[in-house]
Structures are given as C-alpha cells and as structure tokens.
C-alpha cells in the first residue's frame, strides 16, 4: 500500500531517487523525468513537487505496480536496490 505523502519514506525516496530500481517501463521513464527535475536543485519546494508527482503517479498504478511500490517502500525506505 502506498504510504501517505506525509510519510518520511517519501523524503528518503526523493533523496535516493538515483538508486531506486523499478521494473515497469513507464515507472522507469517517469522516475528518469523526476531525476532530471531533481537535478534542477534540492530546495524544499522542489522536493515537495517531486513527492507530489511521484505520489500521484504511483497512486494511479497501485494495482499494476504493486511489486515495484512494495519494493520501493520496503525495509530500505527508499533507494532499495534489487
């Protein structure tokens, strides 16, 4: 299940964006776009924007990307590698 946006795992997710591994093609391309956006700076405003975008994306794919979501927010709390 997708954690709420206030969950601290989302901040770790953004901090570890470059090392996150997913299997779905759309997730890979979406996260690449986020990574490029993250390259624009690491202000709190950008982090909030990235969390909002990622939450929106994964909430739309909660069923079809269940494995990827579970892995991202599992014990490593973001940045998990396979």
């Amino acid at each position, binding site marked *: 299940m997708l954690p709420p946006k206030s969950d601290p795992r989302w901040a770790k997710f953004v901090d570890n964006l470059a090392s996150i591994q*997913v299997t779905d093609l759309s997730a*890979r391309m*979406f996260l690449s776009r986020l990574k490029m956006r993250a390259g624009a700076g690491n202000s709190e405003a950008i982090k909030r924007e990235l969390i909002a975008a990622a939450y929106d994306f994964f909430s739309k794919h909660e069923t079809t990307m269940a494995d990827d979501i579970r892995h991202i927010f599992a014990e490593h709390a973001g940045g998990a590698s396979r």
Partner: protein
Amino acid sequence: MKTVQETKKLIRAGKKLVIAGDERLLAALPRGEWVGGTTPYFMGEDGGVCTHDLLHVSELPDSVLSIQTRFYEASLLHRIPHDYQVSGFTFIVIPAFCEAHHVFAKDCSSWPDVFDRPLVGWIAGVDLEDVGKVTPKVFDGVTGESSDTKALALHAELPEGVFARACIVNLFKTGQGDVLSFPDRGFEVTDCYVNDFKCNFAQYLVEKKIDTRQPLVANYMGAMVNVSIQSVDEAEGKVILYAPVFPSVEYRVAAPLDDYEAEFNKLVEAGHIQKPVFACNCLLNYLYAHLEGKKTGHVVGPITFGEIAYMLLNQTLVYLILEET
C-alpha cells in the same frame, strides 16, 4: 502477413485492428475499426521481409471493449494523455519527417500524465528507395481519412481486471567509452560534452572512428534508450540523429552487437518475451543486423522508422501485452 482480401474480411467481421503496409493497400481497405500506417518492411512469420503486396495486421483481443480514433496536429499532441481511456492503452502512428514526428520526439516525455497509460506505436515510413518522393502516411479506418502531417491515435478501452503493459527489447548495452552529454535538446547536434569537456560531436565521432551503426545509449533508471546516428557532416561539424538527445542525460556509444538474431532468440527461448498484442521493430535493426529472411522468434509486426513506447526510440523492439490482475 495478410492479403488485402483477408484483411477486408477481418474489418468486415468487426475486428479491431492495427494495420501496417503499403499506402496503396491501406487505401484499398474499407472503413471499420482500424488504424494503419505505411511501411513496406516487416517482421513476418517467415522472417524479415520487404513487400508492397501484403499487410501486417495486429488484431486486438476481444477483451478490448471499444476504441476511439483521433488525429492530432503537432500543436495538439500534448492533449493525447487527456484522451487516454480510464482503463486501457493508446496506439499512436506518426508519419515520418513531419512536424508532428519532431514535436512528439522532443516534447512527449514532458507532457503531464503521459505515463499514465501504456502508449505504444511507430513512425510510419516508406521504402527507402522512395524517401523524398513519397510521404509516409497514417490511415484512420473509422473515418476513412489519411494524413501525412498528423499523428493518429487509437485509444483502446479495457475492462476492469485487464491491463496493458508496454515493453521494450533493446539488445544494445552501454559501451565502456566516454560519457557524452549535450547542451541542447534536438535531432541536430553540433556541440557535445565528452567527459565534461566541450567539443564538436561530428569531429569526435570521426576522430574516434566511432561505428555509427552503434546507437548512443542512455540509462533511464534501468531502461536502455537508444538514439541512432543518421549522418555525420564533418565539414559542417553537424550530426543528424534519428531521435533527439536531451540535456541532463548521459549517453555512451553502445557496445558492438555481434548477432542480433541469435541474441534476440535467446531472450525468446528464455521466455522473456510473452506473446504480444502488437510489436514493432526498427528499420535500422533490419538493415544493420541483416534481418531480411531472419526470424525474431514468435514476434511479428511492422519494421518502422522509429518505435514509440511513451517516447520515441531507435533500434529497439517495442511490444504491448495484456495481463489480468
């Protein structure tokens, strides 16, 4: 591969179809629930083939509840995600060389919600002998219209419990050479950075004796995305690409690929490629890997001037599968 007569029967039977073939054949088809794009190159049941006399027909499964087709001018392409079905997938076919082709390639990955549904398709082409003489075209079987300037989308609706997944097979891997990056987005490149040192890209390719049949490869979080090289003009210091490069993305020249057919069939035999609803492969793979007469496992479909899986890809096989939750 099917004849025009066989294809007409499927259309008249009310099948939902994605059709690829010669313009003359597509123009001869009756109206019905289909979209099409031109190409004479195919991955056929008997191997790679160039023919102006047969069509490739991808029949959408009965689980597809409905389809809606729509043309998009270049300036309206960004609206494609707005028209996605609540549950479903979208095919897109774009005539090569037109403004819509270039706008899609440069902008699509930045459109809001573009990744929300599987978006797959191809860039329609023509026989290489006809480039510059005949324009690639797309056909909307629902309305009977065709275009050589607009993209055509087929938005397919799926029932609850069935979902589509867009997949790619890219046999190219990043080589061990220099890290390349580009200051500007585009198909036409002059400047680049080689390990952060600015230089002229054409000069770099010539001096390093790069085999331009190997694409540039970028790693998109595990998805290898190719950009193929069309031409190098050393005198003008200009390189033309088959897909745009983007700033903030690191590229490397791909490692050489010895035997495309053998490597591809290894993946098929290992069960890594399920039976697709639709598949397409790149004309450059057909040409450089000499795929004429060679089989790509059970995977059949058009050979194209560019493949689309959310974004424009080169030298990549794109396919779509349906799964049940």
